[in-house]
């Protein structure tokens, strides 16, 4: 098992390197760190800045220099905040992880329950309801759902309750004067909900079809022929097998979330990775863009790796 993990890990290293090259090429060709000096009255300023940043070197040399610095942890400095980019990303990452952890936990539980129920009671009224809901969930754009949530769960709900403060806040992560856990969840509830809609919809449909596949398998009939009670057939024999594909899909999806909650964080002003990225683009803070992309890609690759490893852990046929 350890050898399997190590082998997978080693395969990932060249992938990260190639990805960093591609992203470096892409970002250097589509962003211009000197753009903000264009309006300067000093005509030599842009040229001096290009020289200082090494932008006149061949791309290969630029990559080599950049990669050397990046590995050492020198990711440059934000043009706007003047803080180290690594500090900015680290801070944003912590906030993003909090959102991801909570919504993934929530979605995992709901998706598995819904998926199992829908498969076991296929074509029941509730199965149809879940199926329709998941289709709707997959079809509502994140930004639309977020705005609806703000409208109904913040404003309308406050009016209905007759409170001064809304039950759920729609901006930021903490109130200025309140750092309690309760306050955190009053801020985090709507972003978590927004993130969860698509995840639950996708995962529960996936789990349903995985369970249906498994429930039709010969070994389920064998278990029934042995006299194993139905509940145990479903939750032991079937679920244990159906979780194998779901787990890998979940791992891959969670990896993608690191670059995918741009919209949610932007709308709810959540100080995470997505917000950091949009702010950087809007403000022309190109120093943040490349490290941001590298880190996000690394998470995606890392969670793909995790998916592989989990597959091996859960399926004895792969393990050997």
């Amino acid at each position, binding site marked *: 098992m350890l050898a399997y993990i190590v082998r997978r890990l080693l395969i990932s290293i060249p992938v990260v390197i190639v990805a960093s090259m591609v992203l470096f090429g892409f970002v250097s060709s589509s962003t211009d760190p000197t753009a903000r000096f264009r309006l300067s009255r000093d005509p030599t300023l842009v040229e001096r800045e290009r020289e200082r940043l090494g932008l006149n070197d061949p791309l290969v040399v630029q990559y080599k220099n950049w990669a050397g610095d990046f590995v050492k942890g020198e990711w440059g400095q934000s043009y706007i905040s003047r803080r180290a980019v690594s500090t900015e990303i680290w801070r944003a990452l912590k906030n993003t992880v909090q959102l991801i952890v909570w919504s993934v936990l929530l979605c995992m539980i709901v998706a598995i329950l819904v998926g199992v129920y829908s498969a076991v009671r296929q074509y029941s009224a509730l199965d149809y309801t879940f199926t329709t809901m998941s289709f709707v969930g997959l079809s509502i754009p994140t930004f639309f759902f977020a705005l609806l949530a703000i409208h109904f769960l913040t404003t309308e709900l406050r009016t209905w309750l007759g409170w001064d403060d809304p039950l759920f806040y729609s901006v930021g992560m903490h109130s200025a004067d309140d750092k309690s856990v309760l306050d955190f969840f009053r801020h985090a509830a709507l972003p978590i909900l927004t993130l969860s809609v698509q995840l639950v919809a996708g995962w529960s449909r996936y789990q349903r079809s995985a369970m249906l596949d498994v429930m039709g398998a010969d070994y389920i009939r*064998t*278990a029934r022929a*042995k*006299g194993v009670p139905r509940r145990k057939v479903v939750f032991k024999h079937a679920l244990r097998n159906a979780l194998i594909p779901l787990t890998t899909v979940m791992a891959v999806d969670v990896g993608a979330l690191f670059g995918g909650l741009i919209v949610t964080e932007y709308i709810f002003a959540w100080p995470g990775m997505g917000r950091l990225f949009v702010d950087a683009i809007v403000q022309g803070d190109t120093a943040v863009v490349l490290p941001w992309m590298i880190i996000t890609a690394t998470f995606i690759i890392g969670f793909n790796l995790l998916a592989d490893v989990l597959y091996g852990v859960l399926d004895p046929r792969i393990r*050997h």
Partner: protein
Amino acid sequence: MADELETDFDIDALPAAVQPPGAVLSVRNLRVDFKTDDGIVKAVDDVSYDVFENEVLGIVGESGSGKTVSSLAILGLLPKTAEVSGQVIFRGRDLVGLNERALRTVRGNKISMVFQDALAALNPVFTVGHQIAEAIDVHRDLSRKELAAEVQDLLGIVGISNPKARADQYPHEYSGGMRQRAMIAMALANRPDVLIADEPTTALDVTIQAQVLEVFERVQAQTNSAILLITHDLGVVAGMADRVMVMYAGRQSEIGTVDEIFYEPRHPYTLSLLASLPRLDRGDRRDRLYRIKGQPPSLIRVPPGCPFNPRCPMAQTPDPCATEVPPLYSVSGGTEHRSACHFREQLAGVTVEQLRARVRA
């Protein structure tokens, strides 16, 4: 958990049903229908037979002849879309229509099954030992240690060497023949009265087939279980079975002892099957294999009259073969030899060679 052990359900408390003396399992007028979008599929149509203690009853037929469906119906293992009617009498009690809870006390305990493709029929994520132990654990209250010992015993019985180590392996680590042995061990776990084996050797190499059949013979000698052997392989039946039932299009064509079926067949379908068997002892290349014309009928639209009549080399159509459904007549001369053919008596003495010759002419 309440449903871990279900010994509280007493099957003998059910009302008694009539069975001939010595019969363990009696199937009476069994019908299985599937409602589909295209119509009703009559997978099993009015099938009745007995399985007696300590005997091997072979059920022979093509795919779609209803042999597998009828065996799954015995333990109520068909999907919910199946409509089952008739009686399945086990030790004097009718199992048809019993609820899951009641059926579970019989499944794997009194009646157990060996399935065709052992790789698919064993759960890939649990060890073989665990799956056998589970079969025991569902019906008997044993300690972990006793369970482990029992599992090793069972693996030993079916001829798996080094059972202690093998018990901790997963199905994919077994060879095809070993997996089928493990399936048999699992089916034997509670010394069942009836063992239903559905094409137990089909997926195996010829040499492995022989070994697995040997296991069945040894097992029967040791446990006295009655065996219901379902197969399309006439050779397997000839070697193993005491009695044979031939099925066609969901119906019984003929039933009798092995000798009656193989040497005095009284149904054209049985004759055709025998005629289509290649014979290694005859090198005459001009003697081509017999081919049954046409193909098995759709079970949604079974031909009127005798279902075999469109393919039958001796059918007299339309009357009576295409108009009248032949019931399972007793055949004169035999004791329990029955045939569903209008012309069963005229078939007396007709040999396979005669059929071949007649068709060639």
